[in-house]
C-alpha cells in the first residue's frame, strides 16, 4: 500500500462536499484504506477520496469537477474485479456506484429492465423471478458483483456457453463520458443506427466512461433444467467428453470443469460436496430448454460421459442438490483460501480442442515452479482459470506466482487463444498485452481511448502497457529473469511454447 494519499485540493473537496453532502464523501486518510484494491490484491494504492453519487447528474457533476481540477478518477462497483481495474494507483478519486443500486424499470412483456449500475447481478434476477424471468450472464461472483462492473468487464459466466456474455444482454446505456458529458448509447429495441459505440463501451474496463443507467435483456426461465455431475479418473477423458458433447450438436447451458486440487478446496469449505480424493477431474454439465428435449439431451450427455470413461455420472435429483453442486463450483475461487494463504487466478482462453495439452503444460509448470495450481474453468468455451497458490510471506513467491501466471497466459496465446476470457486486463495483465498484440494494434486501441478519454483522467494506467514508466521496465526485466528461471526446468516445453511472432506453432507439448 503506498504510504500517503495524494492530497485533495481543498477547494475541490469543498465542491465535492457541496455536491454530495458530507456523508457521501470519504476524504480523511483513515477512511480510504479499504479502497486500496479490488479482488486483485497484489497491487494497491490509496485514492484521494471516495465519493458515492446516487444519480447520473451527480456522477456528471463530480466528473466535471474532477476535470476542472485535473484530478484522475475511476468508477468502482463491488470491487470484485480480478485484474485490478478498480485499483487507484495514481491517487484517483474513486467514484463508487454502490449506492446507485436501483431497479429503475421493468418491462416484463418485452423482457427489458433498466437498472442503475450498482445493482447487484443476482438481485436483478431475484427481483424479476416472480414473473419467471432472469438475467442470463452469471459470473461466479453474481451474488455480489454489480451490473456496471459486468458491463465494464464484459463479464461471462457458467451459462454464457449457450446464452452469450454481457455484451449480448446489454442493449443500451446512459454514459457519463470522461469529460462529464452525458450520452445515450445503444437502443432498447433493434440495432442502434450507426457505429456500435455501446459495443465499444462494453468491456472497456472503465476507461471510456461511466455507465450510469443500463438497459438489459431479460430471459424467460427455461421450462426444464437438468444437471449432471461426472467424475473422471483422467483429465484427458474429461476434456474429450466436452469436445464429444459439443461435436454431437448438443449445446449445454453450461459445462464446467474442476480438477482435484480445486475439489479439495471446495470440499474444505461450507460448500462441501464430498468429491473422491483420486478423481482427476469433475464436469458439471447443465442442459435446459423444453421439458421433452432436456430429458433426451441429458440422456445423451450421460451416455457420452460413460463412453469417455467417466468413473460415475449423477443427475441432480432435487433443486437442493443442484444448488449445492453449483455453489461448489461458484465458490471455488474463494475456497482456495482453504488450501493456500494467497493465490492468483488467471483467465486465459484456448481453443477447446487443446485443453488436454495446455493442462499438461500447466501441470509441468506447477511441478517445476513448486507452486500448486488448481484449475477451475468454463470448459465449454475453453476459458481457463488456473489458481496459482503461493505464500506471500515467503520472499520471492509472489513474484514467482506472477511469473508463472504470465507464462500460462503466453501459453494460451501461443495455443491460439487470448490472455483474458472475462476478468479483463486491468493492471494485472498489462504486460501480457504486448504478447498478444503488436505495437500497431496497441497504438490503434490507444487512439480509440484518446477519442473518449483525451486527458486520460478516467481510469488511467489500466488496460495498456506503459513501457515509459521505469517501474514497469524494472518489472518486465525482473519477469524476464523469472521466466528464464522457471523455463530452465523444462526446455522442451519452452521451445514449443515460444513460437515465432507470426504465431506459427508446430508439434505438441
Amino acid at each position, binding site marked *: 500500500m*503506498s504510504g500517503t494519499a495524494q492530497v485533495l485540493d481543498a477547494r475541490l473537496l469543498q465542491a465535492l462536499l457541496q455536491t454530495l453532502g458530507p456523508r457521501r464523501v470519504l476524504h480523511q486518510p483513515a477512511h480510504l484504506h479499504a479502497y486500496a484494491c479490488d479482488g486483485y490484491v497484489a497491487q494497491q494504492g490509496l485514492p484521494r477520496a471516495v465519493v458515492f453519487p446516487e444519480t447520473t447528474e451527480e456522477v456528471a457533476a463530480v466528473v466535471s469537477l474532477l476535470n476542472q481540477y485535473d484530478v484522475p478518477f475511476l468508477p468502482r462497483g463491488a470491487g470484485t474485479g480480478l485484474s485490478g481495474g478498480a485499483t487507484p494507483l495514481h491517487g484517483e478519486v474513486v467514484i*463508487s456506484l454502490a449506492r446507485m443500486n436501483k431497479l429503475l424499470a421493468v418491462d416484463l412483456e418485452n423482457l427489458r429492465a433498466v437498472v442503475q449500475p450498482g445493482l447487484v447481478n443476482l438481485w436483478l434476477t431475484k427481483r424479476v423471478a416472480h414473473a419467471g424471468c432472469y438475467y442470463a450472464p452469471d459470473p461466479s*461472483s453474481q451474488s455480489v458483483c454489480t451490473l456496471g462492473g459486468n458491463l465494464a468487464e464484459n463479464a461471462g459466466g457458467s451459462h454464457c456457453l449457450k446464452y452469450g456474455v454481457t455484451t449480448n444482454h446489454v442493449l443500451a446505456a446512459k454514459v457519463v463520458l470522461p469529460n462529464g458529458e452525458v450520452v445515450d448509447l445503444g437502443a432498447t429495441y433493434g440495432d442502434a443506427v450507426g457505429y456500435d459505440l455501446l459495443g465499444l463501451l462494453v468491456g472497456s474496463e472503465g476507461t471510456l466512461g461511466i455507465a450510469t443507467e443500463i438497459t438489459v435483456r431479460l430471459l424467460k426461465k427455461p421450462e426444464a433444467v437438468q444437471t449432471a455431475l461426472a467424475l473422471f479418473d483422467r483429465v484427458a477423458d474429461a476434456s474429450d467428453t466436452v469436445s464429444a458433447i459439443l461435436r454431437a450438436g448438443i449445446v449445454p447451458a453450461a459445462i464446467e470443469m474442476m480438477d482435484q486440487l480445486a475439489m479439495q478446496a471446495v470440499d474444505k469449505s461450507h*460448500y462441501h460436496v464430498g468429491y473422491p480424493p483420486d478423481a482427476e477431474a469433475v464436469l458439471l454439465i447443465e442442459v435446459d430448454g423444453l421439458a421433452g428435449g432436456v430429458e433426451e439431451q441429458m440422456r445423451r450427455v450421460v451416455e457420452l460421459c460413460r463412453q469417455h470413461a467417466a468413473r460415475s455420472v449423477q443427475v441432480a435429483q432435487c433443486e437442493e442438490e443442484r444448488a449445492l453442486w453449483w455453489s461448489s463450483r461458484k465458490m471455488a475461487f474463494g*475456497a482456495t*483460501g482453504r488450501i493456500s494463504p494467497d493465490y492468483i487466478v488467471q483467465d486465459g482462453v484456448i481453443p477447446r480442442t487443446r485443453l488436454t495439452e495446455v493442462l499438461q503444460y500447466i501441470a509441468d509448470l506447477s511441478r517445476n515452479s513448486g507452486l500448486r495450481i488448481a484449475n477451475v474453468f468454463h470448459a465449454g468455451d475453453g476459458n481457463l482459470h488456473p489458481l496459482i497458490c503461493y505464500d506471500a510471506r515467503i520472499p520471492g513467491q509472489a513474484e514467482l506466482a506472477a511469473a508463472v501466471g504470465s507464462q500460462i497466459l503466453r501459453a494460451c496465446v501461443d495455443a491460439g487463444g487470448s490472455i483474458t476470457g472475462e476478468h479483463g486486463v486491468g493492471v494485472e495483465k498489462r504486460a501480457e498485452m504486448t504478447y498478444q498484440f503488436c505495437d500497431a494494434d496497441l497504438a490503434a486501441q490507444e487512439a480509440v481511448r484518446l477519442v473518449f478519454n483525451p486527458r486520460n483522467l478516467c481510469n488511467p494506467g489500466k488496460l495498456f502497457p506503459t513501457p515509459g514508466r521505469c517501474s514497469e521496465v524494472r518489472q518486465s526485466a525482473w519477469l524476464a529473469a523469472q521466466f528464464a528461471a522457471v523455463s530452465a526446468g523444462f526446455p522442451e516445453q519452452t521451445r514449443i511454447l515460444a513460437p515465432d511472432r507470426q504465431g506459427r506453432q508446430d508439434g505438441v507439448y
Partner: protein
Amino acid sequence: MASDQVTTAAPRNGAFLWPDAPAPEQYEVCVHCGFCLEVCPTYQEWRDENHSPRGRVFLIQAAAEGRLSLDAAVVDPVFTCLDCRACESVCPSGVPVGHLIEAARGQVYHADPPRGWRGALARLFLRGLFPHPRRLGVVRALLRLWQRFGLQCLAQRLGLLRLLPPHLRALAVALPEVTARPARLSLPERLPAAGPRKGRVALFTGCVMDVLFTPVHEATVRVAQRHGLEVVVPRDQVCCGALQVHAGDRPQAQALARRNITVFAESGVDYIAVNAAGCGAMLKEYPELFRGDPAWHARAQAFAQRVRDIAELLAEVGTEPPRGRVPQRATYHDACHLCHAQGVRVQPRQLLRSVPGLELVEMPDAERCCGSAGVYNLTHPEMAQTLLTRKLDDLPPGVEMVITGNPGCILQLRAGLAQRGQRIAVRHTVEVLDAAYQQEEEQA
C-alpha cells in the same frame, strides 16, 4: 510493480501490542473475494467498503502488520460491526470474522479504555453488574417494583419516559414482566427426567436472560424433562461473558469463562443446554478466549463440546410431536447467533412444524439481523433502528406471532412492534413448544 505499491510480508510488530491479538492465521485466509459484502447488514445500508466484512478484515490485517495505526481507520469499522456473523455463513474461505472483530476490540479496549460517562456506564454494566448474580437480584427487585406497583404506567402517564431517547423508551415499555426469583434459584437444583432417562443436562441460565426471561427457562426445563432429560441447575454459574467480549473486555470474559467451565465440569452432565443464542454461541466459543493458554484451552474445548442450543438438543435426543394445538399463523426469525454462529437453522423449524395448528410461514431474509446484536441497539441506535424497521417490514402479512431463539431479539422485536402499535406476539421457540405440551396435558 513499483515497490511502494506491492504488499509483501510485513513484520508482525503492528498496532496490536497486547496479548490475545487478532490471529494471523485467521485474517490471512481472507482472499478478498467479496462474497461476504452483500450479506453484511452494515454494508447493505451504507454500501461503504469500510463497513463491510472484507473491509474490516483488511483493515485489521493492515493494523496487525503495522501499515495502519490503531486509530479511527480501524476502530470505527470494528465497532460498527454487529458481530452477527452473516459473513461467516457465506465465506468460502472460512474467515472467522467475528473472532477477528472481537479480538480487535480487545486491543482497542487496552489501547483506549472507554472513558467519560460512556466508559463509566460500560464498566458499571459489564464489570459491576452482569457478572454478579446478587447485584442482578437487586435490579430484578427494582424492575419488579417498577412494573408491579404501576410505576411503569405512572411514569408513562407523567411522560417521564420521554426523558429517555426514543429507542430506550420503546425498550423500557417492551420489557417483559419480571418474576420474583431467577430460575437459577427458583428451580430445584435437580429435576428428574420424565420416563426413561436419555441423559443429564445442565441448564445455563445467564444474566439478563434470567432477570427478564425466567419463564423461558421454566418452559425449557419442562420440555427437556418431558423428553427424558434430567435437568440440573448449577447455582454457582455466572454470566457467559458475551457482552464483555463484544465490548472488548476480554479479561473479564475470561474470568467468567473460567468460573463457568469449573462449575459445569463439576456438575458432571452430558449436555449444557442454552436457550439464549448469544450465550450459546459464546459458550461454544470459549476455546477462542484461551488461544494462548493450552491448559484452559483444552478445558474450554471439553466444555464447549457439550454445549447445545435447546432446539439442537431436542432434535438430537428426539421429540414426540405435541398433541395440543397452537392455532396461530407465525413466522420464524433466525437469531444471528443461532443460524450464523451455531449453524442451527433446521432444528427449530422442525420442532415448530410438529406443533398442530401452528401455520409457519417463512419471511424473506429470515437470517438478516434484527438490529439487537447484544448491546448494539444501545450503542448504535440509528443502524439498529434501520435494521429493525426492515425486519418488521419483512414480516409476512397476517402473522400473529414471531418466533425466535434469543432474548435480545425478542426484546428488540417487541419494542419495534410496540412502537408501531402492531399486535403481534414475540415468543421463544421453546415457549411455543411448551405451550403445545401444556395444552395437551390440559386436554388429557
